């Protein structure tokens, strides 16, 4: 048998069936014992004990099962309540009829036993017994008279002396030898034969056996009891019935024999009862004895029958309860399996297959469940495959994609989105996107841009967001689309991010290149002929004119030439801005650049104090040293130009490292004590043609911003709390460069 569960079940069923069969057999035997006490009387107690022990064993088995059921109920195990219901139902179905039957049977039994005993039967038996005694009494009186007559006869004659002593017969220490008294034509023999007695004995006054005669030739006569002898010695005759053997009555007579000499002897005789009378008397005695015994045993019989019946009832109930328990468990087993299977299914286990133990409706249900589980498992695998395919597809996209559920929680995020937004790969799946953006500093602008679209549940929207991450300024084009769903309240969103930083930069560069090209072409080219024409005009006519006109000509042409030079300088500046020079990246020490520029300006402006607080050991960055020098140059120049001419003019240049937008940066601060920047200019101060200076081109700060952004850095300009303005440049540290520098430093150590 392959199935161990089935084997265990069959073994348990077999054991219980065997126990039940034994109990039933014992009960039957006990019932037989009740009817035939002679045969099974000795077994009754053993059977009673065996049955009680068997019942206890079954009850114990049930108790164990009930305890297990209680534990399952408390643990709210699936199927336990159904088992309990079925158990109660089955038990009620089995126990109620049996109990009713028991009560009525007990009543019938008691009435039946009581019906055996009737007062009339009682009286009839008493009367029969008395009648028997009376019938025998008549015969006994005759025999007494007859024996007394024989005693008189003996008293008048001369008896022979006996050779046996009666005491010797009674004494256990003496050896009783067969009587030496030989029957012969003696008086006693003739008397016995004449009277019809079976045995006749003559005793002396001292109890000695004088003579004896027996029809049956027994060696030892049937001696009367000592009490009889005492009674006769006292002069009173004795007569009584003696049941000397089974079913055979004798009349025992003992009378005193009074001789003339005064010596007292005793004549003892045993008379048989006539066979018919004997049979009748025995029958009456037997019936009376049996009735008396039954009457005495009436209560005991009732008790024994009640005990047997109670044991049968208990056996029925216990077997019914056990059968109910077993059946209930068997019926509830598939449902329990189904419940546990459903729980496993809910927990994500699609491999569970329930055992189909029957071919009935429950078996069909279990088969259907297994089929359903298989189908769900296959569908899940299909969905998983689709999801992986989608993930692979998304990971290959250059655009960042974030899928949100209806609560704006992240469900899917592809690699490009993680890279663009500089997020931890999987940490944010399941979190609300708004919370994620608020937690991360550089994503605050993104949170501001996304919130309206998500909050208003717009179908389609698009925002351009500028963030400053570890890779510097990024311009992201964010498009949001609501996902269509059957239920309106369960819609999600998909956000697609595109990094358009390079595109915008390219567009700007192209625009300014066009400006520069046009300037060169439209403005710069005519300037040289104007300048040359002005110089020729001056040379040709200065000598011819008088002093006054000559001076005017000289001043006017000088102005033209000077303004043309200015225009040339402006055009050259534009040309510089528009150029897209090839970045010559190398390891740059910002402190070195600052020292050089400060030294240059300090020499040119000794009246202005330029203070440098440069961080020792400032990490190098990767960049174009010449262009960075131009940035510093422009900013310090601006600071000097903004500084007052008084002796208090003071410019402070500071370098440090800072952690900004999840990356390490080198920070350069250039502060002045000037008048600061007008609030209306602050917003657009880095745009071309925005300047507060009368002679400025408006391209200095725009150029600064362009170069800083080319280095993936950020530049800000704001007014100081006290006086003047502060320009802050943050340039990201090149990680690879930093690592290699660290490696070099370690090797040097």
């Amino acid at each position: 048998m392959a199935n161990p569960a089935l084997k265990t079940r069959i073994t348990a069923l077999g054991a219980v069936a065997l126990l039940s069969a034994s109990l039933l057999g014992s009960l039957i035997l006990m019932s037989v014992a009740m009817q035939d006490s002679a045969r099974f009387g000795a077994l009754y107690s053993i059977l009673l004990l065996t049955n009680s022990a068997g019942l206890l064993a079954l009850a114990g088995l049930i108790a164990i099962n009930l305890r297990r059921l209680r534990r399952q109920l408390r643990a709210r195990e699936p199927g336990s309540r159904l088992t309990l219901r079925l158990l109660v139902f089955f038990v009620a179905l089995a126990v109620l009829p049996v109990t009713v039957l028991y009560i009525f049977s007990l009543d019938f039994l008691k009435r039946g036993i009581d019906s055996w005993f009737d007062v009339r039967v009682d009286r009839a038996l008493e009367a029969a017994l008395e009648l028997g005694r009376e019938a025998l009494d008549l015969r006994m009186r005759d025999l007494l008279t007859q024996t007394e007559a024989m005693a008189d006869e003996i008293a008048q004659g001369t008896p022979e002396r006996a050779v046996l002593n009666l005491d010797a017969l009674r004494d256990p220490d003496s050896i009783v030898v067969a009587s030496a008294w030989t029957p012969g034509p003696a008086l006693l023999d003739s008397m016995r034969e004449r009277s019809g007695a079976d045995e006749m004995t003559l005793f002396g006054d001292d109890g000695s056996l004088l003579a004896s005669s027996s029809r049956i030739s027994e060696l030892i006569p049937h001696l009367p009891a000592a009490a009889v002898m005492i009674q006769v010695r006292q002069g009173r005759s004795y007569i009584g019935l003696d049941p000397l053997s089974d079913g055979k009555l004798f009349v025992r007579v003992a009378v005193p024999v009074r001789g003339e000499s005064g010596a007292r002897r005793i004549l003892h005789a045993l008379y048989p009862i006539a066979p018919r009378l004997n049979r009748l008397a025995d029958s009456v005695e037997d019936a009376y004895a049996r009735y008396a015994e039954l009457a005495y045993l009436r209560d005991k019989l009732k008790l024994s029958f009640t005990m047997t019946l109670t044991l049968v009832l208990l056996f029925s109930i216990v077997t019914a309860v056990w059968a109910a328990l077993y059946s209930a468990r068997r019926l509830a087993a598939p449902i329990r399996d189904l419940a546990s299977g459903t729980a496993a299914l809910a927990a994500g286990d699609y491999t569970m297959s329930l055992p189909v133990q029957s071919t009935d409706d429950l078996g069909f249900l279990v088969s259907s469940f297994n089929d359903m589980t298989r189908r769900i498992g296959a569908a899940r695998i299909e969905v998983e495959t689709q999801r992986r395919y989608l993930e692979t597809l998304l990971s290959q996209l250059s655009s960042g994609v974030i899928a949100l559920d209806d609560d704006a929680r992240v469900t899917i995020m592809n690699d490009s989105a993680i890279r663009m937004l500089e997020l931890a790969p999987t940490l944010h799946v399941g979190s609300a996107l708004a919370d994620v953006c608020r937690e991360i500093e550089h994503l605050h602008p993104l949170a501001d841009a996304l919130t309206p679209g998500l909050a208003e549940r717009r179908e389609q929207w698009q925002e351009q967001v500028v963030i400053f991450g570890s890779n510097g300024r990024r311009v992201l084009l964010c498009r949001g689309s609501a996902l269509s769903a059957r239920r309106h309240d369960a819609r999600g969103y998909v956000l697609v991010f595109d990094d358009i930083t390079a595109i915008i930069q390219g567009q700007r560069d192209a625009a300014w290149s066009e400006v520069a090209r046009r300037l060169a072409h439209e403005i710069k080219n005519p300037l040289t002929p104007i300048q040359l024409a002005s110089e020729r005009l001056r040379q040709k006519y200065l000598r011819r004119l008088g002093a006054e006109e000559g001076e005017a000509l000289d001043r006017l042409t000088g102005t033209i030439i000077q303004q043309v030079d200015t225009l040339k300088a402006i055009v050259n500046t534009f040309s510089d801005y528009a150029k897209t020079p090839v970045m010559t990246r190398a390891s740059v020490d910002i402190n070195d650049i600052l020292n050089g520029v400060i030294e240059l300006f300090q020499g040119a402006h000794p009246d202005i104090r330029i203070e440098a607080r440069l961080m020792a050991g400032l990490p190098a960055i990767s960049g174009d040293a010449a262009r960075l020098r131009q940035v510093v140059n422009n900013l310090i120049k601006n600071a000097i130009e903004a500084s007052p001419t008084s002796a208090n003019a003071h410019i402070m240049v500071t370098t440090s490292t800072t952690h900004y937008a999840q990356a390490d940066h080198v920070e350069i601060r250039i502060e002045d004590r000037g008048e600061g920047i007008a609030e209306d200019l602050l917003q657009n101060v880095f745009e071309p043609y925005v300047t507060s200076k009368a002679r400025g081109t408006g391209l200095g700060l725009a150029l600064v911003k362009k170069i800083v952004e080319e280095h993936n850095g950020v530049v800000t300009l704001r007014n100081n709390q006290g006086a003047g303005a502060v320009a802050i440049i943050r340039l990201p540290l090149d990680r690879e460069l930093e690592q290699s520098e660290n490696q070099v430093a370690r090797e040097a150590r």
Partner: protein
Amino acid sequence: MTRDAFARRLTRLLLTVAVTSAMPPAWGGDIHIGMARDRIHNEMLVVDADATFEFSADAVDALDSGIPLTITLEVRLSRPRRYLWDPEVLYALRSYAIEHHALSKQFVVTDNVTGNRRVHATLDLALADLGRIRDVPITDRSNLGEPPLDYALRLRLDLKALPGPLIPIAYVSPGWRTSSGWYRWQTQR
């Protein structure tokens, strides 16, 4: 209830059961053996005993109702040893029945082995006769082996011989438990 209290109660209960089961029940019957002896008679080992019977009211009631009572005489012979248990040499069983004969109003004492019946007018006389045990053969003298021998004799009411319905009640009722206990003696002969 604490565990100690429970243990104390259990001990007290067990002691009570042990003491009460060891004591002869006051309401039950009693058999007292006044004398028992062994003799050699005609090369046979025989025993004599004098006993007095006092049946409980239940037993007398049953007897009066025609239910015969069986008295069992048990004789056990063992050889005494100093260190090990005494090996049993012999075990003999003999039973007597006493019953009331309603027609004759007599009490009949029957030796179940020999079938001898003795008839008495009263129960007291019948019990006195039953108590006078004489010449009960046990075994041949040659089976006895070397002396000394330990003898033990007991008389008891045989409950298994009662009618079936009465047996369970007799077993659980103290009124029916009637036994003399073992009467012991030793013979150097």
